[in-house]
């Protein structure tokens, strides 16, 4: 695992998100109203909607396509919906945000090679199988 820089914290709007491209994976980097920073794959577990474009409220985001509400801490869909989006660790240091990504992705980024982890906009996955779903997806890459 590697930490990659995601630019200055000031570039993230409060109650908003921006996209970080690592290889050809899009990571949505969120900043909540309370100032917390979270990173999720920019891909709703429902139909693959870009979560970075959603409305951020509390520590949740509402997907712009069909209003699924995703928990930013866990990546889990909330309410009666079931599904999970991979999460990444995020930290703020000296006013800059960095995100922890698997080596495979980071190397691809360094070499300018596209990693093959396009958003799997398939049907929702059952909740039981979703522990550490972040890693599972990337280990294949």
């Amino acid at each position, binding site marked *: 695992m590697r*930490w990659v820089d995601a630019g200055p914290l000031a570039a993230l709007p*409060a109650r908003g998100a921006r996209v970080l491209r690592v290889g050809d994976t899009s990571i949505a*980097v969120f900043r909540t109203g309370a100032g917390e920073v979270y990173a999720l794959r920019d891909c709703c577990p429902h139909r693959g*909607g870009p979560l970075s*474009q959603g409305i951020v409220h509390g520590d949740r985001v509402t997907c712009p396509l*069909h209003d699924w509400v995703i928990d930013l801490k866990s990546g889990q869909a909330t309410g009666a919906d079931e599904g999970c989006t991979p999460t990444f660790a995020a930290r703020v240091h000296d006013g800059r945000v960095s995100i922890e990504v698997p080596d495979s992705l980071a190397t691809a980024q360094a070499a300018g090679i596209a990693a093959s982890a396009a958003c799997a906009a398939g049907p929702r996955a059952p909740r039981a199988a979703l522990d550490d779903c972040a890693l599972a997806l990337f280990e294949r890459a």
Partner: protein
Amino acid sequence: MSKKLVLVGNGMAGMRAVEELLELAPEMYDITVFGSEPHGNYNRILLSPVLASEKKIADIMLNTREWYDEHGITLHAGREVTKIDRARRRVHAEGGLEVPYDRLILATGSNPVVLPLPGKELPGVVSYRDIADVDRMIAAARRGKHAVVIGGGLLGLEAAYGLQKRGMDVTVVHLMPTLMERQLDSAAGDLLRRSLEQRGLKFLMPAQTAAILGAEHVTGVQLKDGSEIPADLVVMAVGIRPNATLAKASGIACERGVLVNDTMQTFDPRIYAVGECVQHRGSCYGLVAPLFEQAKVVANHLAEFGIGRYVGSQVSTKLKVTGIDLFSAGDFSGGPDTEELVFQDPARGVYKKLVVKDNKIRGAVLYGDTVDGAWYFQLLRDGTQIADFRENILFGQAHLGDSGLGGAAGVTSLPDKAEICGCNGVCKGDIVRAITTKNLFTLDAVRAHTKASSSCGSCTGLVEQLLAHTLGGDYSETPAKKPLCPCTIYTHEEIRQAVVREKLKSIPAAMQFLEWKTPDGCHKCRPALNFYMLCAWPGEYLDDKQSRFINERAHGNIQRDGTYSVVPRIWGGVTSPKELRAIADVAEKYNVPTVKVTGGQRIDLLGVKKEDLPSVWRDLGAAGLVSGHAYGKALRTVKTCVGKEWCRFGTQDSTGLGIKLERTTWGSWHPHKVKLAVSGCPRNCAEATIKDLGVVCVESGYELHVGGNGGIKIRATDFLCKVATEEEVIEYCCAYLQLYREEARYLERTAPWIERVGLTHVRERIVDDASGRKVLYARFLESQKYSQVDPWAERANGKDAEEFTPLEPAGVAALETAGGAA
């Protein structure tokens, strides 16, 4: 340390309060529940289907014992509370158990009334209240042949029907000449009686029971006139009485029931009461819907929000007898100054009566066709003026220019495979299964679990009917007051009033003043608040970008693959070679995959990458093209036909007028999208009569039509008025749009808004009140000063640049090995 909460009464009302409390403040209390029945909590209103062998006990359990364990709640089932020691704040129960409390909820329910008849204690005489009663009746039905039910009210008839289905020969003895006389008038009562007689029930009425006969076990019933009927089982179902015994014994003020104030507190402020044991503002309730409203208030206060108030309920009733559709609500007995609207079709067995006073519904009785029960009930509770549609009201909502809330088809007769929600592909069977297996009670819960009715909302009526039908009838779905969203207890109207009255000019200020329950709202309330403030304080309120749906933030329409669509404004649908060339150049330069002509006489560039949007707009802007707002809750298009300049039938310059209208109104934000049209003659080629506002030109002037839409459910416009000049068209149009902006709920289109407030209201404000119209017109123009700025030009020049660009990392050089300081 958690405070201690004790609930006395493990029924629907008390447990509902606990569940609401767990939602609001899961950790706040250590909860102990006492129930006199030896079960978990069950849905009492479904006992009748159990008796009629249409459901099993397991089907009607709401909270199993495991549920109590999971939530850390101590359940003492089958243990009566004998005493409340209020001084020491301890509850005493059978077997010497003592439990201390900081707060107590009394939910002791009600007891069946037992008539003081000779023989009332004989084995074989039962009342109808709980699972034990149902078990006794089922056992009796196995052994005996004859049953007598005393009481022809709701419960009595359901008991009679159930026993008859279990093979007994049932006679109902009723004191009054009309069945269910508290819910039905005599005409509907007679229809009901006839239909139950066809199913094999017998009725003796009016008739009074004198004695119950038998030595060891009941053998029959003797009536006042001396006649006798054989009986192996006698069910007394003559009413219920609030059970306030424990409260009275503990010195808490009671009359018929336990007295409570609007926060459901008894005279001892540590003790709340909820449900059928309660007497609130002089009323006791025996139906589920009011109990749920009370439970919400109790939970709100226990969670120390302290802002809920219960102000009483209007109730409606439905009979749970399979195949009999019956609905009643409000006061249907009539009286001075009331009128009755009646529809009768004896051959189809349909009877509908509405009692109306001052053009508002006061009561409703429906028999045979109850599809519109929920609608009439809503009109009753809202006190809606029905003058505008009373000539059609008895035919139901489907026969109005219905804008999407109706469920016209009889949902009960649909097969399980019938698709109810077309947006999400949810069938009737899915919804019914979710309601029964997941114990859903509300429309919101069904939406959350099945997605039905959660997208366009046009099937809401059908889903509500399914809920009512599946849960059994005396359940009523729609709460009298609908909060904007779960973040607040206030309605759209209350919030708007507060924004204006309290001069709230920022979202945090509004949330603080209105005591929002969440730190920064949700995707439902923030966009609504943003619009309400924008509308109330033009020029002062600073638009909150993060509270806008992505389309209005990115000024394009997000597509399913995350790209955007770009629709430049084409004024009145008239374009030029220069504009077309600019659009073609952009389409080629940015590899736009699809170029499509829209229904609103414009051109849509589909599949533009977000990063490209500002430069696409810059290129379009160079040719004079501006944003078409095709993405917003805003003024969209003004569709026109060619009018008298070219058309041989044209009466006025419809194209020119359309362009003037669009130049005046573009850029305005609204509760929902707004579309206008101008047709040059009554042939109406611009389809003006399905627009939010349509102008139909005639030789002598301009007809204005309002409240149409071609959307989910098509609605033709209502005729507003006719005016003589183009200037008047513009003034009336802007005043109407401003009224809509100021009065409609966010995400309510003009069609449902007009159906809600009534065309008369709109006509009074726009046509009859000339000075009021001019004021509205002036407010619209004032607001336009600030909104007629092309958002594309601004962003092509660098505004909100971060919205359209990905994050720029310093590079991979900044990488370090993970596992260090996190």
